[in-house]
């Protein structure tokens, strides 16, 4: 298993487009935080809102990490290397598990780095501009932890979407349209059809909502929402794995 994991890591880091995506996942939220901290007019804005700005941009990183998960799988199909991969490691469960572990670990590290840089640089810039409010808050570590976990789960979802579609545009579209479009439409329709329907039952949006500083309105709470989303990702991963096992390479 260790050899397969090392091989998957080598595969991921030796393609320039993957490195570019990792850089994008790092730079987008950092750039947003640096610009926000540099130019925001913080008079009359609550400390919590400022604190939320420092971590909120991490959500964009989460989606980019999902795309990296997609690419880690679909590159294999578009470039034909899946045949070498499965010939070198005929155990397809092992290949899938190794891929998911590598992508999830990478996502966790990127998310942690984003949080660290955004927090440190954001606070330094704000303090340099004379901000005297309190940026720490109760449950701050929990918010950061949720971001790291969501980054891992969305990266795993990317792997599942990539395995299901075997097609980069298809998988990336599915990944991005699910929370942005599909859940709005499906939730809207179900809201009309079912009495007492709650939009929080839409898994992806609920998972992303769990990254807010304040989660009092969430039906399942922070970790319940992430767990609920993870359950969906788990089911999709099992379906993807079964398809990977059955399909011809």
């Amino acid at each position, binding site marked *: 298993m260790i050899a397969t994991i090392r091989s998957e890591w*080598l595969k991921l880091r*030796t*393609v320039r487009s993957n490195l570019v995506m990792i850089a994008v996942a790092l730079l987008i939220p950092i750039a947003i935080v640096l610009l926000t901290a540099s130019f925001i007019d913080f008079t009359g804005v609550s400390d919590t809102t400022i604190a939320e700005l420092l971590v909120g941009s991490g959500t964009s990183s989460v989606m980019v990490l999902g795309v990296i998960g997609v690419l880690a799988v679909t590159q294999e199909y578009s470039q034909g290397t899946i045949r070498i991969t*499965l*010939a070198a490691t*005929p155990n397809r469960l092992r290949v899938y598990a190794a891929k998911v572990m590598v992508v999830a670990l990478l996502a966790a590290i990127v998310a942690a780095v984003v949080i660290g840089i955004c927090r440190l640089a954001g606070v330094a810039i704000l303090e340099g501009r004379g901000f005297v409010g309190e940026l720490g808050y109760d449950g701050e570590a929990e918010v950061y932890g949720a971001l790291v976990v969501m980054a891992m789960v969305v990266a795993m979802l990317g792997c599942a979407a990539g395995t299901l579609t075997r097609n980069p545009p298809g998988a990336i579209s599915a990944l991005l349209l699910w929370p942005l479009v599909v859940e709005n439409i499906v939730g809207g329709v179900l809201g009309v059809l079912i009495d007492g329907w709650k939009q929080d039952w839409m898994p992806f949006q609920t998972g992303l909502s769990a990254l807010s500083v304040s989660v009092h309105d969430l039906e399942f709470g922070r970790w319940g929402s992430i767990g609920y989303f993870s359950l969906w990702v788990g089911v999709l991963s099992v379906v993807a794995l079964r398809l990977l096992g059955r399909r011809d*390479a």
Partner: protein
Amino acid sequence: MIVVDELTKKYGSTTAVERLSFTVAPGRVTGFLGPNGSGKSTTMRCMIGLDRSSSGSARFDGRAYRDLARPLTEVGALLDAGNAHSGRSARNHLRWIATSNGFSARRVDEVLEMVGLQQVAKKRVGQFSLGMKQRLGIAAVMLGDPQVVILDEPANGLDPEGIRWIREVLRNLANQGRSVLVSSHLLAEMAMIADDLVVIGRGRLVDQCTVTEFIDRHATKWVTVRSPQLDRLTDLVRNAGHRVESSGDAADIHGVEAAAVGELAAANGIVLHQLAPQTGSLEDAFLRVTADSVEYHGGTEAGR
């Protein structure tokens, strides 16, 4: 030793490979021949578990591919030289393959040198010619120093020097005692490289034998004669019911043994300057034996 036993692959209602059985012996190059769409590549993919066979099996020294702990140490397969990420360097391409089966980076450098790509090891595969990709594919095959080598059209895209190189590689692999299964459309090349043949058509086994046996069994045979009394001789042969093609001072007589032509000439006092039994090429034998299996025939206009 590879043993393929009753291998069958169906795609819905279409049967791509049907109850195919053959063996590939160690120390020999076995050519895998068949017209386009006859199921060669499908068979190879099923053998190494990339495609799920509908029934039957392929065993490598008695074991299925999926049961090999480090498969690349036992079976090296090159199914398509294009199966490499165009943005990755040749060395990194080999490194991830090597790492998956626990081979060292030093082994990667060894195989790069073996195939003559050490100078371009850091170049991206997307910048490689097809011939260079074939060499890279052979390098990947050799990473684990396997006893079984399976190559699908390895000479595709190679220049004459490359074709000679692949011929030598295959011969050396067989001479080292490995079982080598290789498919190719270059029949003249195959006649030079292969010891044995497995010929399939429409997914079914047509014949398995040595190259010499295959040509002997299936190629056209005729007798070439030269004689100062050629017209008299050809009249006699035609009257005996045999087909004759004359050109200048020579004639090719079909459907008769050389001895019979010689006896006919002697009995009629005809002088012979040449009496030579002739046999067609591997290509001739292949085309005859697979004529019914070819899916698409070219029209005569297109051939002109």
